[in-house]
């Protein structure tokens, strides 16, 4: 079988698996639909959270970004894993104890206000739609590049699959397909990484291979990172492991970006709702540990993949004859993702920092996808990587669609507009909302707003500056009032959204960034503003009703009667 046939086989097998799970896990109650009946065991919930969380950006783009950024790429690694510490310590167990279905549910009930609920609904829908657009583009990228199918058709096929398990099984269907998707995506990520690590350094563990010596080529016997630093210096780039300075982000900017990504992770509704699905509070705590463990398996591998890809790229291509490039080069060149322009007409590929003389442009999204071909791995692995990219994108899209449909059917309709709805009617509403959300998401994939990573950065900034502060204060400070929370969310999201729109979309110049903080990091400042505004406004407005204060106090203590020991 050639690799094209393998790709088709792998994609069809995995899609069949997802549909099978959807049929097996269909539900008939709103509790089943929104929170999987609160019966998901922590280890499986951890896997589902891993797949829910690791998106097209993590799977397809992240290693490529680190590969280009070197040390500076660490902000993504720290930010997207450190958020789980915030989630586990400050949010997940308490929200699980609160015992509601959605994030707007918590905000609306805790802040005894339907207006606060509405602000939360709008934020949740907006954040989830910006994020889902990125996933749909990821689906389109995989389909068009691996299967030669148009982006439009690729997005439609992907959406039909999600539609199937999201409407039939709701959160339960999504949970168990996410478990399967995690397995697919992690194998797809690890196998090529291990193969390349063995090839370059002889070490089968990529995390160690990354700090080992090269085994062949002109730099055999030298540490891989040393080789990269030397190559970078020769070509005029900042050293791979060097921090700050020209060509890198500054210290404050890195700190702010990492913090915004952490708080954003903790504030993303599709991540938070995964912790509502466990049976107990202790289960929510263990879910956070398992989730981070399963995420760390990929996140600890990504920087190794990044460094391997960088060495491979420079050593194979720089100063080589264009007429003798390997087959994968030509294949990706056809898609326009690798470009070679022979400026000096010598037929050699000259790769360097100097944009005037550089002849090679490589799109960072291809690093992971092209890896198996660069390492000459067999066709079935190439097929697995395609299926893994799709699993990463579809699992995240499903979680986001769940947030959107529950925000509409549960928070907006049941809790605000039509409280007299029966459970059966609410379930119909939830399924219809899922259908509409799927169609809108498909449109976003076909008519994209920007490229994958940029759009995702937007979602994080907004989550960090809207939800995170009001949920944390709502849990830990009984005195937080509805006026405080509403004012905090509006100023946080207004400030962050304004800054991002000004610098990303209205042509604001980087020289004018406040304190050198780029739009990706401004969520940190937005979060602090939200904390400050919420606190100040709460202090000058009447204290929340006694029963709310009692309910908040109750979040701190274990459930009665003791049942926590059976959780894991």
């Amino acid at each position, binding site marked *: 079988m050639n690799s094209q046939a393998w790709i088709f086989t792998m994609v069809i097998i995995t899609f069949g698996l997802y549909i099978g799970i959807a049929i097996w896990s269909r539900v008939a109650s709103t509790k089943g639909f929104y929170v999987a009946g609160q019966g998901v065991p922590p280890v499986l919930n951890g896997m589902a959270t891993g797949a829910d969380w690791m998106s097209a950006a993590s799977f397809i783009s992240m290693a490529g970004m680190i590969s280009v950024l070197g*040390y500076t790429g660490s902000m993504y690694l720290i930010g997207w894993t450190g958020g*789980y*510490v915030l989630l586990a310590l400050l949010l997940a167990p308490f929200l699980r104890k609160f015992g509601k279905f959605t994030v707007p549910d918590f905000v609306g009930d805790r802040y005894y206000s339907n207006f606060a609920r509405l602000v939360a609904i709008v934020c949740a829908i907006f954040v989830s739609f910006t994020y889902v657009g990125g996933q749909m583009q990821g689906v389109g990228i995989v389909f068009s590049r691996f299967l030669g199918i148009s982006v439009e058709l690729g997005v439609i096929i992907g959406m039909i699959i999600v539609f199937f398990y999201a409407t039939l099984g709701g959160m339960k269907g999504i949970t168990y397909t996410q478990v399967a998707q995690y397995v697919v995506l992690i194998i797809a990520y690890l196998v090529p990484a291990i193969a390349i690590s063995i090839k370059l350094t002889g070490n089968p563990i990529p*995390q160690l291979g990354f700090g080992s010596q090269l085994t062949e080529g002109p730099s055999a016997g030298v540490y891989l990172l040393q080789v990269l630093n030397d190559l970078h210096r020769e070509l005029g780039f900042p050293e791979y492991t060097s921090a*700050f300075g020209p060509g890198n982000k500054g210290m404050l900017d890195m700190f702010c970006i990492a913090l915004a990504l952490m708080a954003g992770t903790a504030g993303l509704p599709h991540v938070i709702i995964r912790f509502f699905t466990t049976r107990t509070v202790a289960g929510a705590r*263990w879910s956070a*540990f398992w989730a*981070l463990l399963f995420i760390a398996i990929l996140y600890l591998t990504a920087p190794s993949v990044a460094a391997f890809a960088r060495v491979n790229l420079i050593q194979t291509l720089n100063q080589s004859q264009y007429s003798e490039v390997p087959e994968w080069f030509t294949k990706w060149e056809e898609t326009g993702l690798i470009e070679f322009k022979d400026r000096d007409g010598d037929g050699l590929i000259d790769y360097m920092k100097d944009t005037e003389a550089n002849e090679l442009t490589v799109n960072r999204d291809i690093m992971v996808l092209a890896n198996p071909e660069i390492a000459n791995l067999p066709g079935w692995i190439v097929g697995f990587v395609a299926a893994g990219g799709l699993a990463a994108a579809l699992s995240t899209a499903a979680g986001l669609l769940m947030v959107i449909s529950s925000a509409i059917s549960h928070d907006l309709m049941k809790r605000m507009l039509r409280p007299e709805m029966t459970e059966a009617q609410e379930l119909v509403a939830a399924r219809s909302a899922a259908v509409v959300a799927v169609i809108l998401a498909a449109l976003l994939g076909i008519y994209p707003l920007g490229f994958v990573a940029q759009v995702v950065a937007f979602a994080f900034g907004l989550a960090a500056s809207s939800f995170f502060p009001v949920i944390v204060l709502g849990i830990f400070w009984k005195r937080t009032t509805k006026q405080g929370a509403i004012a905090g969310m509006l100023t946080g999201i207004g400030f962050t959204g304004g800054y991002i729109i000004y610098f990303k979309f209205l042509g604001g110049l980087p020289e004018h960034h406040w304190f050198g903080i780029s739009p990706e990091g401004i969520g940190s400042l937005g979060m602090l503003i939200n904390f400050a505004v919420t606190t100040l406004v709460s202090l000058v407005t009447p204290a929340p009703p006694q029963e709310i204060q009692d309910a908040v106090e109750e979040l701190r203590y274990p459930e*009665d009667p*003791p049942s926590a020991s059976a959780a894991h």
Partner: protein
Amino acid sequence: MTGSPSPRVRYWRKHGTLIIVLLAIWFLVPNFGGIFYVQELNKIQIGGFPLGFWIAQQGSIIVFLILLLIYALMMGKFDREYHQDRQAAGEEAAP
């Protein structure tokens, strides 16, 4: 409040202290080791890794994972002690 604190107060005190200690480590390791002092730490080479770079790309993630393991284990212990406390104080029936 007089005498020994109630089981609830004791529980929340332990729980709160644990959260603060773990959050302090969460903040210090990646920011000081991986960002603020990365250039100084990069002068220390461990195997093929400059130390600061390793903390930023691998070490921090491993530390986060250990923090969550400690949290889940310690909270399980605090929960058990809380229920024992309450049974001793007669606030909760023995299982």
